[in-house]
């Protein structure tokens, strides 16, 4: 230990690690602890009083006779979140793979520019990006006007504040996370392997399914994880494009710290979400020997 404290390297790394440890790792552990505490009578928590109510509440509720009955409200919100995330992942993959492939076949200078164009929206404000979709999708908005002008009597599109709008918005928000890791895989791909496949008589479909897709698999898997994970935790898109009517997990968590004031339940939900994320990261890193983030 004395050795470590004398090493210069320790003092260089310590500030950042201690800062993250104190203000992130400890809060996460504390959150798991809060989830097994009793809810305070007026909100907040009773420190020191243990209870598994947060986890029981997820599936059961007490009826008037004080019996536990199954309550599917929260399960529905989880299923909706998983469904929307899977849908988003599919759309993102269908759009993202061809785009990554297109970029990887361009000349070097053009590639850098296109990749830069893919990343720009990521750095812009998420509220603003979703707000822009409200302008496009609302009744009398651009899409509606365009369809009416083209002769379709929509009588109001009624798409904003539906799960479709949420899905469009989620795809838009997380699309860049699909393109970047796939592009990274394709860029490293040895083009001679593909040419060899052609020389051996493969047609284009076979070259794609037997050579290119398998070699791009780590990138595709990383892209899928990097889209699904933030999707499961999406807060802004369901709030704005779903109009608060189609809650996802993050909105349910958030509401426990607002109107519902059930902190242990919110902490329990947060812990479950965190566990899902960490487990999928672990599965990925066991299979591909790296973290999905490293592909970007």
């Amino acid at each position: 230990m004395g050795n470590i404290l004398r090493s210069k390297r320790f003092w260089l790394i310590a500030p950042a690690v201690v800062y993250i440890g104190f203000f992130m790792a400890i809060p996460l552990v504390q959150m798991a602890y809060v989830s097994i505490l009793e809810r305070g009578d007026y909100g907040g928590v009773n420190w020191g009083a243990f209870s598994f109510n947060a986890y029981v509440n997820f599936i059961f509720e007490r009826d008037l006779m004080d019996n536990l009955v199954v309550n599917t409200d929260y399960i529905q919100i989880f299923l909706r979140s998983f469904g929307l995330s899977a849908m988003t992942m599919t759309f993102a993959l269908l759009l993202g793979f061809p785009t990554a492939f297109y970029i990887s076949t361009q000349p070097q200078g053009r590639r850098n520019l296109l990749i830069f164009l893919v990343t720009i929206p990521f750095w812009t404000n998420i509220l603003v990006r979703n707000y822009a979709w409200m302008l496009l999708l609302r009744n009398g908005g651009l899409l509606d006007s365009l369809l009416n002008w083209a002769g379709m009597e929509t009588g109001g599109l009624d798409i904003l504040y539906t799960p479709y709008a949420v899905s469009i918005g989620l795809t838009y928000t997380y699309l860049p996370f699909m393109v970047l890791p796939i592009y990274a895989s394709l860029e490293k791909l040895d083009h001679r392997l593909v040419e060899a496949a052609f020389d051996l008589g493969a047609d284009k479909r076979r070259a794609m399914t037997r050579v290119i897709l398998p070699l791009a698999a780590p990138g595709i898997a990383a892209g899928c994880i990097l889209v699904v994970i933030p999707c499961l935790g999406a807060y802004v898109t369901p709030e704005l494009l779903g109009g608060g009517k189609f809650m996802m997990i993050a909105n349910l968590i958030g509401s426990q710290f607002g109107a519902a004031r059930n902190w242990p339940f919110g902490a329990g939900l947060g812990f479950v979400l965190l566990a899902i994320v960490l487990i999928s990261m672990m599965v990925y890193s066991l299979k591909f020997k790296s973290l999905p983030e490293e592909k970007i």
Partner: protein
Amino acid sequence: MKVDASNPLWRFRGITSTAMFFFAYLYLPIVVLIALSFNENRLATIWTGFTTDWYLVALSNDDMLRAAQNSLVVAVSATVIATIAATLAAMGMTRGRFRGENGVSAMLVLPLLVPEIVTAIATLLFFVAIGIKLGLLTIIVAHTVFCIPFAYLPIRARLEGMDPSLAEAANDLYANEWQAFKRVTLPLLWPGILSGAMLSFIISLDDFVISYFVGGAGATTLPIYIFGMIRIGITPEVNAISAMMLLVSIIFVSVSFLIDRIRY
């Protein structure tokens, strides 16, 4: 992959058209938002004429300006602290391998792995438990945490690409460690540091979810203010504020990208 794009074998059906659709999908909302912020019409999306009035309305809104000022205070403070910590950490991490390196690396990027909403409520619970009053200070502390990896990664990448023999040469020429750092390493490293700092700044300026939960009632940052306005309704003023936020982000990221490409 280095391919001859003119070779017809490399043309797969639907690839180019999907890529075109992709970029249109990505940029259509941004273009529409900026265009509508110059639209004279107060109500609908119907174009009735060009005006910059909504920008003047937005810029003379005192609440908005106060929120913007709060955002700047938060972003500058978080960026300065995070960039210093990240630069030190990156220098420590590049001096060869050591025991527990993977754990330390994982800790440094932990803020990128945890979903934002989880970070938000865990940090909120933590501040409540230790009894710190929620406000701008708690927002700054929380932002610094997720700014560290955004500053760390570009600085680390730049250090990795640097020739270690340059600093060694300085040492051979009797520079002490501080002189070698100041005269050799730092001049080579500054594009990485600046690029990392700019990314931290923009990611802090744009953050909504974490600020919303750890800020409490008093501390309104610009994204929190915009969220409140959007919930009330779509107005040309929101269009103008949003367009300004978009442009600030795009300019910062572009400059950061250009700086990062400066050669050693």
